[in-house]
């Protein structure tokens, strides 16, 4: 896979084709698996890590689950390229920042990634646009079966799939949905959602998972417990709760329009105007304004812009992407100028396309 070309495309999961994709940006399921005969990656010496990578790379090349993967040896990449893969949600921050032999197999549509030598030997993830957890599970289950036919996973009757961190053992599954909740954030109703989710054992995180800040009003909701409940039960917990949050967000949006349509229209139009004209803009402000614009499209206050482009801008305006697009290392201030130019250009193209 040519990393350079990634800056001109976007993952299939950003295209807003799935159910409820006005609010549910993406659904994701990941499985943690380890090979029985090796120590976990952090405890493995260089030779062992190399052996594990060779073995799993070989299996990934054999199209597990009927899918073709492009294998990228992450340990040989420049930090900027690794960062770009993180921004695209294809590898984790930990996978980018850790040491030693490691790699990732990425499907052509960028919706499946198989990380080798992350915290566990194998971390598989499937991403889909919108609220589509059943599709994610069917796909990852099939790939897991195909790989498992070739290797012996570390598994115990009692504790299930054994993982480097005890927080993942059992099913080794993390089920998550990425939600765009600008109205609940604006009205501070989001706190109630957090409290309710915590009570039923679900975690709320920012756009880039563990430890990341909530940016652009995006929140990732995922299961915390992995042991003692089946994959299907864990998926169902999320499937049951998400419609309530969507209903809540939609009700608040409607109320906001009803209360002050003109004020809201002004707010999203100003956000759109800044993005079309700014000469320098920070990542934080970009996320904030894109969030306004995204909601504006969804409630019919902006009608000449499509959601997939807005989704793509959330990713392509991040630091590593901008630097790859510009083919240069840029300091923060230079990035802000490059970011503003890139957004102006993409939004202008959009109008040319339409005419």
């Amino acid at each position, binding site marked *: 896979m040519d990393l350079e070309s990634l800056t001109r495309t976007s993952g299939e999961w950003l295209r807003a084709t799935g159910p409820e994709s006005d609010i549910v940006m993406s659904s994701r399921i990941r499985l943690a698996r*380890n090979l*029985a*005969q*090796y*120590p*976990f990656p*952090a*405890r493995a*010496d260089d*030779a*062992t890590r190399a052996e594990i990578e060779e073995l799993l790379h070989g299996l990934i090349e054999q199209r597990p689950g009927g899918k073709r993967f492009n294998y990228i040896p992450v340990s040989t990449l420049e930090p900027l390229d690794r960062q770009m893969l993180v921004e695209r949600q294809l590898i984790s921050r930990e996978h980018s920042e850790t040491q030693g032999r490691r790699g990732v197999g990425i499907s052509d549509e960028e919706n499946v990634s198989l990380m080798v030598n992350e*915290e566990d030997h194998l971390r598989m993830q499937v991403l889909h646009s919108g609220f589509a957890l059943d599709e994610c599970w069917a796909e990852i*289950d099939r790939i*897991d*079966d195909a790989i*498992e*036919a070739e290797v*012996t*996973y*570390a*598994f*115990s*009757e*009692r*504790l*299930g*799939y*054994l993982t*480097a*961190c*005890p*927080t993942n*053992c*059992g*099913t080794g*599954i993390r089920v998550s949905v990425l939600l765009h909740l600008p109205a609940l954030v604006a009205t501070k109703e989001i706190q109630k959602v957090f409290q309710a989710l915590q009570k039923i*054992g679900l975690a709320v995180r920012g756009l880039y998972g563990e430890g990341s800040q909530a940016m652009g009003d995006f929140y990732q909701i995922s299961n*915390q*417990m*992995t*042991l*003692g*409940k*089946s*994959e*299907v*039960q864990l998926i169902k917990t999320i499937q049951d709760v998400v419609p309530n949050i969507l209903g809540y967000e939609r009700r608040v949006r409607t109320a906001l329009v009803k209360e002050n349509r003109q004020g809201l229209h002004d707010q999203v139009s100003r956000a759109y105007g800044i993005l079309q004209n700014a000469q320098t803009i920070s990542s934080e402000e970009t996320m904030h304004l894109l969030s306004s614009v995204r909601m504006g499209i969804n409630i019919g206050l902006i009608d000449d812009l499509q959601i997939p482009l807005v989704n793509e801008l959330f990713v392509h305006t991040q630091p590593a992407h901008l630097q790859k697009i510009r083919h240069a290392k840029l300091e923060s201030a230079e990035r802000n100028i490059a970011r503003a130019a890139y957004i102006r250009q993409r939004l202008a193209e959009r109008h040319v396309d339409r005419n």
Partner: protein
Amino acid sequence: MKKCGRCSKPAVLHITELRQGEVQALHLCESCAKEYLSQSPEEQESVPAGASADAEPDLDEIDHQDCPNCGISFKEFRAGGRLGCPHDYTVFEDELLPLLENIHGETEHCGKVPKRAPDSSHRQFKLIKLRTDLRAAVEDERYEEAARIRDEIQAITTNDPVGEPREV
């Protein structure tokens, strides 16, 4: 003649143990020594370890007990939050179960099971140890031993029975 620290037979093995700057002398009879040495095969290759003969097992000892396969101690796990190898779940089971209960509220897996029958943990984890031994043997140019270990690994991996698919 000194008596064995664990029973009353005459001690034939005298071990001086250095652990974190502390010196401990250990005197054992033949059978107790055998038992003692078989408990910590990893460590007998380098510095013999173990508790002083009459000490009661306590928390400190759990902290210093190492996994024979990957060498991690529970203390190291607690400091870093990551286990060293799958066998640690067996070695530190008593310490991990309350922790798992805390995290997940459960301690019994319910869900997908590999279709390939999970092997006895012994067989799975023996491979980790054998591979480490093999590398050490090759490094030390003990080729005869290396060949023997390689055969043993091969015997285990080729006798890899694919179990009946299970109900999930």
